């Protein structure tokens, strides 16, 4: 396939079967390989759409500075787009994210402001909001509340899935900003009667969440619970186990958040199988494993890998 530039090569990712992990020929799993995007993650879709919308609305002007809270992938996608479109980028990133993300961002020329590990991504959002208030000329695209994030998936991810898997019964993806699930979910619900939209959410250890107060729970502005039909919370141990299973059983080298998504997908697959229902389950692989090699997720025993991952943000 030929494209005019790397920006034109966003999306159009393959959907591959996972026959060995599927419970039966009537209950099948299909993986949407978003790591095949230009910077290696699903976030290229949202970044391209958010920047295009910012330009159209006059929010972004030549030489503008973009500020964004991100645990990595969105930052890397924005860094690529910013580089090509002539913007500066400042990322607010929790200090407990992987080293690879930091190196990549710096290689693209982005600046990084570290936010405290405790509180995770929510804390990064708070720090970014503080910086935005101090620097009114900086442009925060704010992936958690930017409708262009959702629209990217409504206009691209959803239609691609429907074309490749018209008999789709379930869509399973990670819940972060909720852009992927809201956009793809709304599109599929409009076109496939009875389709199930399933969110998989990472459940971190107490080191990340332990001391936070219940009332501080952060819900992204894009999130609309009515789009979802089910929501799973997946422990680091299960996410790691499934990530390795995907690699050893299907030969798919995915990031840890995709193990989380696979765990939820296998949960709905088991339910369909037990109920004797046919199911064609599409799950979204947000990125590959490259950026997580330094976390130790892929080597040694599962228990060792889990201990190394404790306190780190893996999605």
């Amino acid at each position, binding site marked *: 396939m030929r494209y005019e530039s790397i920006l034109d090569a966003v999306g159009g990712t393959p959907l591959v079967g996972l026959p060995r992990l599927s419970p039966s020929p009537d209950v099948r799993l299909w993986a949407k390989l978003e790591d095949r995007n230009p910077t290696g*993650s*699903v*976030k290229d879709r949202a970044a391209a759409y958010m920047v295009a919308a910012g330009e159209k609305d006059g929010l972004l002007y030549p030489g503008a500075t973009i500020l964004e809270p*991100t*645990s*990595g*992938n*969105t930052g890397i996608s924005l860094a690529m787009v910013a580089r090509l479109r002539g913007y500066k980028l400042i990322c607010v990133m929790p200090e407990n994210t992987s080293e690879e993300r930091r190196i990549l961002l710096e290689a693209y020329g982005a600046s990084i402001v570290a936010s405290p590990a405790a509180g*995770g*991504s*929510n804390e990064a959002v708070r720090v970014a909001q503080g910086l935005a208030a101090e620097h009114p000329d900086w442009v925060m695209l704010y*992936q*958690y509340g930017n409708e262009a994030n959702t629209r990217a998936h409504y206009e691209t991810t959803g239609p691609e899935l429907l074309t490749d898997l018209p008999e789709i019964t379930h869509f399973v993806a*990670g*819940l*972060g*900003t*909720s852009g992927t699930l809201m956009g793809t979910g709304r599109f599929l619900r409009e076109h496939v009667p009875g389709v199930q939209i399933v969110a998989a*959410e*990472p*459940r*971190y250890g*107490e080191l990340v*969440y*332990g*001391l*936070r*107060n*219940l*009332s*501080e*729970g*952060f*819900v*992204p502005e894009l*999130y609309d*619970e009515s789009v*979802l*039909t*089910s*929501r*799973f*919370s*997946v*422990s680091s141990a*299960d996410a790691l186990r499934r990530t390795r299973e995907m690699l050893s059983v299907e030969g798919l080298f995915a*990031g840890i*958040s995709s193990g989380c998504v696979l*765990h*939820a997908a296998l*949960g709905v697959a088991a339910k369909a199988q037990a109920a004797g229902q046919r199911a064609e389950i599409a799950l979204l692989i*947000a*990125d590959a494993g490259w950026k997580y090699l330094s976390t130790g997720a892929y080597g040694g025993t599962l228990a060792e890998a889990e201990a190394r991952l404790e306190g780190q943000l893996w*999605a």
Partner: protein
Amino acid sequence: MAIEVRIPTILRSYTGGQKSIEGTGSTLDELLADLDGRYGGLRERLVDDAGLRRFINVYLNDEDVRFIGGLSATVSDGDTVTVLPAVAGGSR
């Protein structure tokens, strides 16, 4: 056999510091009522007049109970119920 209930750190003052407690019941509502007998005040932190509190998530075998009937979700022996503060997650 019973139903295992996992408690987050911030609510362990109600369980004498225990991470995990056990209870019985055929619905989540019955389970929480059963627990409240031994761990007074716990139910109040999870439930208000309108049902489950907004910033509390309860999972039955990793699945959010809000999508499978809320307090009337069916539970059975061997299930695991996990209580968590509401948080966003995922790759971003």
